[in-house]
């Protein structure tokens, strides 16, 4: 009798544990919906050229340099890139106007795209220009993914001659905003 009783209590207990424990409808396949869309901001390029390094007569002058810039070529970034934006800000306190060309170059040093920034000469008042955001999406983004080097051409337009005593600087500051889209394939 007692054994029976213990038995039934144990049974009820076990059954109760098993059946009282319900669960809401769950859908574990939702994992496949996971899509990460982080947005990262980073420096792109910068320079600061003092006027006295641009010794020039009144005519036009060109300076050029290129730097390694293959970050968007890296496989782990390429796969997840959705959009990239370049923001450029130039401050000119030199009494000469400039045209600055930003060149994206592939591994054969061929120009993939050129972005031009027209910089007016300094006239004594603040001369900082924030240029419209350059957006790389779809076809244009493919160019970025082939980019090996970034080149800058600074073209000085005609105006007052500069010498080693000339004042002012040409400053460029820029950033990239990178939009990722990471999801299962």
């Amino acid at each position, binding site marked *: 009798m007692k054994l029976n009783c213990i038995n039934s209590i144990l049974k009820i207990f076990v059954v109760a544990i098993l059946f009282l424990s319900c669960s809401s409808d769950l859908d574990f396949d939702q994992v496949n919906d996971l899509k990460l869309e*982080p947005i990262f901001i980073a420096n792109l390029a910068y320079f600061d050229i003092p006027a006295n390094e641009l010794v020039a007569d009144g005519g036009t002058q060109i300076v050029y340099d290129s730097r390694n810039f293959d970050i968007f070529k890296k496989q782990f970034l390429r796969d997840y890139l959705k959009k990239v934006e370049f923001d450029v800000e130039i401050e000119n306190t030199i009494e000469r106007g400039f045209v600055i060309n930003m060149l994206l170059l592939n591994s054969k040093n061929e120009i993939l795209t050129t972005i031009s920034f027209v910089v007016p000469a300094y006239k004594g008042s603040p001369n900082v220009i924030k240029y419209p955001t350059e957006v790389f999406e779809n076809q244009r983004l493919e160019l970025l993914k082939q980019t090996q080097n970034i080149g800058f051409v600074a073209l000085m337009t005609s105006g007052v001659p500069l010498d080693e005593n000339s004042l002012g600087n040409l400053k460029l500051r820029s950033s990239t905003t990178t939009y990722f889209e990471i999801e299962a394939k």
Partner: protein
Amino acid sequence: MRAKYLILGLLFQISCFSQNKEVLYNFTSIPQSLLVNPGADVSYKYYFGVPVLSGVSVNLGSSSFSVYDLFADNGIDFNDKVRNIVNKSSRNDKVVTNQQLEVFSGGFRVGGRESRSYVSFGVYQEFDFFMYMPKDMALLALDGNKNYIGKVFHLDDLNVKAEVLSVFHVGFHKKMNDKLVLGGRAKLYSSGANAVSTHNSGYIFTGQQPGTVNLYNQIISSNLELKTSGISRFTKDEYEGNIARDIAHNTFFNGSLGLGVDAGVTYYPKENFQVTASIIDLGFINQSKDIETLTYKGTYQYQGANPDFSGTNDPENVFAEFKKAIPRDTLYNKYTTWRPTKIYASLQYSFGYFRSDNDCNCKEKIKERYRNAAGIQFFGMTAPREPLVAVTAFYKRNIFEKLDLKATYTIDEFSSTNIGLGLSGTIWKLNMYALVNNVLEYKDISKASSAAFQLGINFVFQDSED
């Protein structure tokens, strides 16, 4: 794809498992209560556990979200759920996972019928996992740094350790007199796989400082270290085997060895008043098999490309510079890990005399003379940042002579409504027990912040049954 599962895995860590066995503690009709207090007032002529079925325990829970929050089939976008969970979590949310499986266990009384000295022994397998919510890393993965200019992302949010081990143990406890029981247990640990990354520091920062040459001031200062034992060969390309089988083999036969002790005491200041205390897993493991330590230490300030129009040519490469500033180093030094040490204590008051159907068995067990017992328990466990603590109120009732019930109410970091229930019954010589906690949540287990169960079957032989 891999990144996705990695991130999901990181989020999952918040599902918390606690190691507190509040229902089992001092539940002395179950021989396995000796594993949480080697000085528990347990007596037997001899016992043995049904192999693999004598003690199974799994604990799970969560301090900041439940399975329901993440996987409910309720039409809310999964990514919104993930974001909500990360936003409402804190860096001190933790996962404490513990799973144990007794391979075999047994015990016997030493000396004659009058002796009150007992030996117990066994082997069990254990899995431990401890991790804090890496909140800053989760935010970076979800949102990036765009909306967090000026924020410092702390790398010390990354704090995790995991271990698979087997434990060979021999314990001894003795009733010194009617008032005092003392016990101890020696343990030999064999760790099949261990990973520790608990001493990280550093930060990732993006700020704006007017008047500087760059738009942003970007710094990564990294002091990351991951120590592993018994794992590195699985990460090699040439490995072709079954990871689970190899870890299981190493756990029992080829692990890193360590030593530990348990100690415990039960004391009766009065016949119906009992005090107990125990310390469990005071020990270490000397991690020595297949060891590998990875470090990323250094500081890197990212400037961006800096063309130089003066004609000098110094080629720069962002990746090369980064790797040079924060190199990945691999070391092969042995290291020592400390086991998570647990402390239990309890105060118990007994009342209501028990009327036995059998003839009086006067020399056995004071506790069985009372039908009810109530009291409080304390639990503490070492953890990388701050110890985990819990307080439990309990009530025990002897329903029949061989059927005991224990109910607990526990408050800890994971829940303040944790009610546990345990039953231990003996039919003939077969002792069966089932213990669960957080029973209130069983009406919808997916919403539970934590859940734990233990069950097992033993054969227990007492003198009276000779």
